[in-house]
């Protein structure tokens, strides 16, 4: 498992990428639109630029702190992230993969075909192994949510390419 320090660097790197994008967009797209200069009314770049500069200063501070911390104590033994075992991380990662696949196929195959398998897969991932119970629960949860949202809240859930719906 990555240490807290590595994760700090990744998060700081992400924020660095965000502000680089802000400056790049101001220098290209906003400039082309003619909204990167002028008075407070026309200059739409001034405010995000000021915040990005502020973030850059903070990032410099935080990078400095992380580097100094690293020199002072190479790796803390009591790092809370060290307690997380690879199988725990694997479960969380698998949940995200299942959920991402669900979101990708949701509009293609529709809510009623996509949801029960997603619930089934997450229950399996949690360690449940009773297939009949899982199947029954997956269907019950998926249908229960569909009933509440479609009947009480008038939400049209994704029908998919086959236009599958339940006429409540």
């Amino acid at each position, binding site marked *: 498992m990555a240490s*807290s320090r590595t*994760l*700090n660097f990744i*998060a700081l790197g*992400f*924020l660095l990428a*965000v*502000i680089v*994008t*802000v400056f790049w*967009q101001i220098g290209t*797209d906003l400039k082309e*639109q*003619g*909204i990167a200069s002028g008075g*407070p*009314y*026309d200059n*739409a770049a001034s*405010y*995000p630029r000021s*915040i*990005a500069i*502020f*973030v850059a200063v*903070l*990032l410099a*501070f*935080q990078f400095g*702190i992380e580097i100094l911390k690293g020199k*002072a*104590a190479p790796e*803390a033994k*009591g790092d809370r*992230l060290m307690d997380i075992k690879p199988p*725990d*991380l694997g*479960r*969380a990662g698998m*949940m*995200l993969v299942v*959920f991402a696949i669900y*979101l990708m196929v*949701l509009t293609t195959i529709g*809510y009623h075909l996509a*949801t029960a398998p*997603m*619930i089934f897969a*997450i*229950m399996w*991932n*949690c*360690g449940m192994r009773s297939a009949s119970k899982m199947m029954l*629960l997956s269907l019950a*949860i998926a249908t229960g*949510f569909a009933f509440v949202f479609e009947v009480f*809240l008038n*939400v*049209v*859930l994704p029908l998919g390419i086959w236009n599958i719906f339940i006429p409540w």
Partner: protein
Amino acid sequence: MIFEFLNAGLDVFLSPLALGLTFAGIIVGLVVGAMPGLGPLMGIILLLPIAIGLPPVPAMGFLIAIFVGGSCGGSISAILLRIPGTPLAAATLFDGYPMAQKGRASDAIGIAITSSAIGGLIGGVVLVFCAPILASFAANFAPPEYTMLAIMGLFAIVVISGGSIIKGLLAGSFGLLLATVGTDSFSTGLRFTFGSNNLLNGFHIVAVVVGLFAISEMAAQMMSRDLLKIPDVKVARPGLHTIVLTMKHYVNLIRSSAIGTLFGAIPGAGGVISSFTSYAVAKAAAKPGEDYGEGAEGGLVATEAANNATVGGTLVPTLSLGIPGDASSAMLLGALLILGFIPGPAMFENNPDVVGGIFMVYLAANVFLLIAGILATPIFVYVLRIPKVYLIPSILLLCSIGTFALQASVFDLQVMLVFGLIGILFRAANFPLAPVVIGMILGPILEANLRRSLLISRDGYWIFLDRPVSATLVGINALLLVAMAYLMIKRARGAKQSGMTKAIALHK
């Protein structure tokens, strides 16, 4: 003036929809509050997509009731399982669990619920009286004052919420930058849209917040090793006699409610600080024989009255100034904005029925809390027995349907997932998530007022010092900056010392 608001709100409040949803919100709040890992903020986030399709007062009644119920619900698991359902109930452990161990679990839950309801009502009285006064004072505010208030709201939350100041500021600034995506309201130019039509109106706040909080929380829950475990919880049935037990501590009740309301009104202070402070004050003022920490009723009264009174307090700046006190009230503010109301003096002037309706639903929510809490506790106790293996897929499903229902957009689902990953990264790297939301909500207010200030100014940024109230707020912001610098140095020294202590201990 105060009664005018209540009178105006009475008509919209006395509808079956508003009353029914306020009661439903209390039930939902108690359930999400009781479940470890969820809490009022998560409850508001998960049900926000449903609420924003409703008329304003029933919608706000539903969300505010979740906030009220959720602030109290954490005490149930704290008392029965020794696991606070929410950080708000952390101080409830001290005396709640020992009471349960002594066979008084029902009394402990009854006292917690009664204290929460009465604390909430006292906070409500303060809200009803103070919010209109503050709003009428703020009616003379112009863009420079609002600019400084928005900065103050963000700074205060970073200073008081604990953790690394720099990380808090980075998270808040990230939220401010997210709010700039989309069409600029002044120049009508497009900012950071990368040619995508989906980004013309920016990111939908609900999709971002569901991803940041709910998806990352579910990923964290998946890492626990008790996913199939059914907690062994005994059913507790508090009776009406617990109201009498609570009222015996009336001085403690009023004092703790006052502390809670005061802390609630300070942006960033919130329920956790107020409940610990009230507990400390109650312990200091305890009579001989009251054994705090070993099951004293007074300890429960202090913590629960304070954390629910905080809700009333936090709504004062949220409604009258448009400055949220914490992440939950930021979500309420976001809901009001989505419903088409801009919190602040203008809302008090133009929509007294909505303001009065919000006052009424808040007061009613606390009355419903007492009724539902005393009568339906066995149901909430039963909810504690639901294993995580059923909860996690259900919550993920609620996240996806709720986000899709916002505007039937697949793009919102993608945004939710991406922000889920960002939320996981931020949590792992110890970046607070609340400042991101508050930055995103305060961002448009800050930018619009900053640019308006500069438009009306004849001498640039000096406008912020030319006006007395604005200059005072600049002074307060400067003090907050000094406080940030001081806290950074203090925490760095503390970390250095604890590092040295660890090193010495390892050496031994």
